[in-house]
């Protein structure tokens, strides 16, 4: 099996879907002639032409609104926000239009679109360009929110997102673009809303997604050297949220740590902990810990930024606190 980067996996997914279905088209800032800010759509403009690879004005309201309109009229837009931080400008289009139209109008129309957006911190881009606001979008029913942690998942989930008849926000953690992983030749789809056990273990359950999942995996590797076997569960999607594997794992280990890059307050950790106590109260053997970004606007200084973000040591410390 080929080991390719997450960037390549996403590129392959987009390309395969564009070749398969001519209603699929790409729009966004600099996605065409320039090939995408993160080079995900490099070569697409030449291959598919300006009709299907459309550079937009520097206006997220335009990108969000036009994508919703195109989807309502039968196309399958894959609209890219240059970063998730700019999606705030298009919040109305995303949560009020894309997420609500089908149910508010009794199913008269569908909104089969994908918003792609790189996100996350750790690259010294300053507080306003380093958000991990995934849970904010996941709060709203009507919108699926997916954020993969591996190239394999990224490809299978993006292809499924493009084929979804409901809007999907597909968040790509920018520090994972260079992450390599095995991806099989040929087509495959992964169901949206199915969590996945990425590592088996019996002593503690680490629950994460995207960058948080990778940090959890690093921590699990180190913990194993000390004889502590962590099971690592990848949520893969925040909505719909599949708690099945996490609950099953918790019932085996009795202890859990939730790892997320976003801020701690009102984060995915809060949601996961609430569900674990609802569904597996009688299996709880220690407080469930949350490892998350500290409650500060993310600093620009490299040292301060790294201090505010999650890392494997914080996960290891949290595990040792409850073992």
């Amino acid at each position, binding site marked *: 099996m080929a080991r390719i980067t997450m960037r390549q996996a996403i590129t392959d997914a987009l390309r395969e879907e564009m070749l398969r279905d001519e209603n699929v088209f790409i729009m966004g800032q600099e996605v065409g002639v320039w090939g995408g800010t993160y080079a995900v759509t490099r070569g697409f403009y030449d291959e598919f032409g300006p009709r299907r690879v459309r550079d937009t004005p520097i206006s997220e309201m335009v990108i969000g609104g036009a994508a919703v309109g195109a989807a309502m009229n039968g196309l399958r837009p894959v609209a890219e926000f240059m970063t998730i931080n700019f999606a705030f400008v298009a919040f109305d289009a995303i949560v009020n239009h894309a997420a609500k139209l089908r149910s508010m109008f009794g199913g008269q129309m569908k909104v089969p679109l994908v918003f792609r957006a790189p996100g996350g911190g750790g690259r010294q881009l300053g507080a306003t360009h380093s958000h991990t606001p995934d849970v904010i979008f996941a709060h709203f029913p009507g919108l699926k929110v997916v954020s993969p942690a591996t190239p394999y998942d990224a490809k299978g989930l993006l292809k499924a997102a493009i084929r979804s008849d409901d809007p999907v926000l597909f968040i790509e953690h920018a520090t994972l673009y260079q992450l390599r992983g095995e991806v099989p030749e040929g087509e495959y789809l992964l169901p949206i809303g199915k969590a996945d056990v990425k590592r088996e273990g019996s002593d503690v359950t680490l629950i994460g997604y995207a960058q948080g999942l990778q940090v959890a995996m690093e921590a699990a590797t180190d913990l194993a050297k000390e004889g502590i076997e962590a099971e690592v569960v990848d949520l893969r999607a925040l909505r719909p949220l599949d708690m099945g594997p996490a609950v099953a794992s918790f019932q085996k280990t009795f202890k859990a740590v939730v790892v997320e890059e976003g801020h701690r307050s009102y984060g995915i950790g809060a949601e996961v902990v609430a569900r674990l106590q609802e569904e597996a109260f009688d299996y709880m053997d*220690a407080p469930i810990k949350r490892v998350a970004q500290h409650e500060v606007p993310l600093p620009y200084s490299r040292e301060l930024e790294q201090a505010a973000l999650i890392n494997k040591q914080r996960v290891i410390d949290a595990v040792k606190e409850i073992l």
Partner: protein
Amino acid sequence: MAEYIVMPKLGFDMREGVLNRWLKEVGDAVHKGEVVAEIESDKATLELEAQVEGTLLAFLEEPGSVVPIGANLAIVGQPGEDVSALTGGGDAAKAPAPTPVAATAAAPAPPTAVAEPAPAAATETLSAEFPGGVKATPVARRLAAEKGLSLAQVRGSGPGGRVRRADVEAALVQPPAAPAMPAAPATPVMPAAPTPTAVAIGPDSEAVSTTRLRQAIARRMVESKVSVPHFYVTTEVDMEAALALRQQINALLPDESKVTINDLIVKAAALALRDFPNINATFAGEQIVRHKRIHVGTAVAVEGGLLTVVQKDTDTATLSKIATDNKAMIARARAGKVKPEDVEGSTFSVSNLGAFDVDSFIAIINPPEAAILAVGSVKQVPVVVNGQLAIGTRMKATISADHRVTDGAEAAQFMQAFKKYLETPLRLLV
């Protein structure tokens, strides 16, 4: 709303405690975490910290009373609150009794530290704050309920004495701590402890009342001797190299971490246990429970008896850590200020009478452990080296082992390993 101060649970096998004295009087303000009384358990005198806040309204027990764990000792509430219903319907005997308290307070105080914090004392308190009076995790509660185990009998190893799943599982495989307890399901039926013979006290004899520590030792040693089939293996260790190494090490270390011969022995025993995990175990009826962590206890003579202070994870602890910890724990034990965690959790014990010019002796296994090592004095003795008589430095050690867990050959191999660690003592450092 008035609340109770209750007799805390200070150890796994604690059933009751003696209320030594009150450090507060009726009418005094009581703050959470404040020391309000002195309690004597089997193992130590400890301070009772209040878990409640308010004004001390009434004493329910007088100094000197033996009180079961979880029973109410005093009432705390709002000043002037009517507590007659709580003190037993206004029974005069149970009402606030300032006089004996004042008398007790005036009596010479035993040298137990009153001002020093004793965190462990407060943490195990049975309290109305928690369901069933015990702080426990949900999974521990469910398991205990399923197995019919009372959580009040389980010592919690979690933060603040919280009972966790592992504590319940350990309690289920451990033999009962006191013969008075009905045998746990996994333990063999134990013959009843013989009732002590009645002795007439005449002019030629003197009755000395036993301390709780003495009683605990009596109970546990009877339990061990009547239920554990002991066997013994003795070996002689050449201590020349170990003593030389100790001298070298101690030249580098400050006083508080100078290494004793016993520290070397404890470390060597821990490493040998790592080689023979079957001996670091507990017999539990249908199964033998091997302990993954090695905690070697050292028997310490204290006034009125002995205590075993425990070095946690002895096999991975450095010699200087073992030395520093043991010194501190032994000092606390001798001062009567031992902390529950100092004396709990050993998986193997060492009893060292080397300081008393002893050739060798045999020890009684400290349940629920599977073996104990009895160590004599290091002596200069005639030895035969290459057919020539020479002066050697030797020490005899005898293991007492539980025959239900291990056999002679394994115990002998364990002793060989122990001997080898001490005779090539650099291995204690790496």
